[in-house]
């Protein structure tokens, strides 16, 4: 469920996980589209025809030894196009921290979402530890180059974001593994908060009214309503000398 907190980067998650789309047109009937190369044909374009309606989306359930992380860096926290987003889908050998299969998907590094299959190959069969971070970094830099004049600019920043997003996912998945696998060396306490994501707080406000003949600095009781916590807190506020 944790991946559903993001209402954005649908594409990126679809590319990183196994999914199947069922579409139907009045003239040609139903057909099933599978994930993989060729689904996206260009910027915001895919192989679904104009006269086809989406009937269903089938997404494989996450397995017991599978971890999925989707992350996004954008200028605004809500409703904004990502600068770079990444989704990481890792399946471990049963009961171990040895990588059985792994998919890296990135948005913002090309006109369409891209996978990094060479990077995946380089780490399959390896243990999930700090060594693979180095291997992934090396491979991602080679596999996802951006030319100096790539549309969107911020070339160095975007390239480094692919690494940062993976590292964030690495920290998160490492912490999950610690809970299930006994002989893992834990991530140090100084590093754990690197896996945290931002949660938008509901904005709150209050309006101050003077009651009666209010002298400066007389105390008034105001209710501050913290909607996101579903509780009401009383605060003592000096009355503003309006």
């Amino acid at each position, binding site marked *: 469920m944790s991946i559903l907190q993001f209402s954005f980067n649908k594409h990126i998650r679809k590319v990183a996980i196994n999914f199947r789309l069922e579409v139907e047109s009045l003239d040609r009937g139903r057909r099933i589209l599978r994930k993989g190369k060729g689904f996206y044909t260009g910027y915001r374009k895919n192989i679904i025809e104009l006269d086809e309606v989406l009937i269903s989306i089938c997404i494989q359930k996450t397995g017991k030894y599978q971890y999925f992380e989707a992350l996004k860096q954008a200028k605004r926290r809500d409703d904004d196009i990502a600068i770079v987003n990444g989704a990481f889908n890792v399946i471990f050998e049963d009961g171990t921290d040895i990588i059985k299969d792994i998919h890296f998907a990135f948005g913002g590094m090309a006109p369409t979402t891209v996978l990094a299959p060479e990077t995946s190959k380089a780490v399959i069969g390896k243990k999930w530890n700090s060594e693979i971070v180095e291997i992934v970094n090396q491979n991602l830099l080679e596999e996802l180059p951006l030319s100096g004049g790539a549309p969107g600019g911020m070339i160095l920043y975007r390239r480094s974001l692919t690494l940062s997003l993976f590292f964030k996912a690495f*920290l998160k998945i490492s912490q999950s593994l610690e809970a299930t696998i006994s002989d893992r060396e834990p991530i*140090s*306490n*100084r*590093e754990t*908060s*690197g896996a*945290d994501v931002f949660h938008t707080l509901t904005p709150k406000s209050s309006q101050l*009214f*003077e009651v009666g003949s*209010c002298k400066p600095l007389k105390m008034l009781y105001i209710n501050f309503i913290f909607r996101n916590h579903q509780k009401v807190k009383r605060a003592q506020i000096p009355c503003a000398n*309006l």
Partner: protein
Amino acid sequence: MRKPLTHSSAFKQATGEAVYCDDIPRFQNELYLGMVLSTKAHAKLISVDATEALQQPGVHAFFSKKDISDDANHIGAVFHDEELFVKDKVTCQGQLIGVVIAESQKTAQRAARLVKVVYEDLTPIIVTLEYAIEQKSFFPNYPQTIEYGDYKKAFADADHLIEGEFRIGGQEHFYLETNASVAIPKDNDELEIFCSSQHPTEIQKLAASVLEIPVNRVVARAKRLGGGFGGKESRGTLVALPVAFAAYKLGRPVRLMLDRDEDMMITGTRHPFYFKWKVSFTKIGEITGIDIEIYNNAGCTMDLSFSVLQRAMFHFQCCYRFPNVRVRGWVCRTNLPSNTAFRGFGGPQGMMAGENIIRQVAAAVGKDYMDIQRLNMFVEGDSTHYNHKLTDYNMMKCFDGVIKSSDFENRKLNVQQFNKENRWRKRGISLTNTMFGIGFTALHLNQSGALVHVYIDGSVLLNHGGVEMGQGLHVTSLK
């Protein structure tokens, strides 16, 4: 006066019933204006051909420099250094070359794109302040200088002397309501203009000037704005004047509300600034003198840039005592849309530079920046470098009060602790002072009048020159 009143505009705004400029219902014979904008930053205008545009169904007219006298074509906020329609030379992208008047927005915009403009490229194209300084692309009569005390002596006697530079970029105003205007010809020689302008008087004055009619024939009205932030103080003319011009020429109502991309392209931003400074101070970090150069990026015309620069020249000292000062300011001409007023009007940029200097001094003497703030803060009776004697000066009280009420010291310790304990996630906390002069530096602007009518049924009508743009002017007027 002190009784609480609900923000009187709030109900209409919250329910969506408030009528903004473009919400005014369409008039029966109304036309829409499409802009033909320059696509070059610096070029000679060779030819403008609207033949194809005029052949489109629904297109009524095309106006350009040919339809207006040279005198009437000159517009501007204070200095008339802009043209309603470009005559010979474009100096930024998004300058108005002509207007297409058509029956709908779509037709007008499509037809405007069919107008063929031929340019001949000119050099240089200046965008950045650095390049403007290198090319000496300054407006005439700059630098302006303010000298106070003897900075040279202070430098000679100083324990420490450090140099530095500081840059700050511009921002788009991004009001929710883009610039809009509807002009309605009245009688046969009058014009009523509804505009989303912070300065309807200027619209009235300049509309009369481009139409070559007396000001008393023009009424400019602004009921409310969906935000202005300075972006509609002088740049509102970019929309209102062509609309007024077309409406008057055709004798039919004409409307234009900019699309967001058009608005962002043509209306300018906050002024980017570049500061270069040299400051002297004692061993303990007490500032003794400063020599500072201030440059702002005005864009292609003056607009209000001279005044924005002046604010920065006044406010770079923030609330700190610089006993010996030389400050020099330059307004730089570049090939960008003319930059304009934006909340603070150069003050924030200046104060940022001043705070930066305080922090550099702190670093140089190895002290906490707040000690340096406290050490150099103005006290009662001090004088600023623009000869303003500070009386009833409560800055230190305010500073201490904020530190106490925000529990600053404890929070700072918590932040330091958090940062020590977390390698990848960091927090920060900072305290910055501001001191800002209220009012216009052109002193005659600091006045206003109002007219109150009391009708026989007891109701009251208040006329005033203010524009409600979210600041609660109506509720203040009611009080």
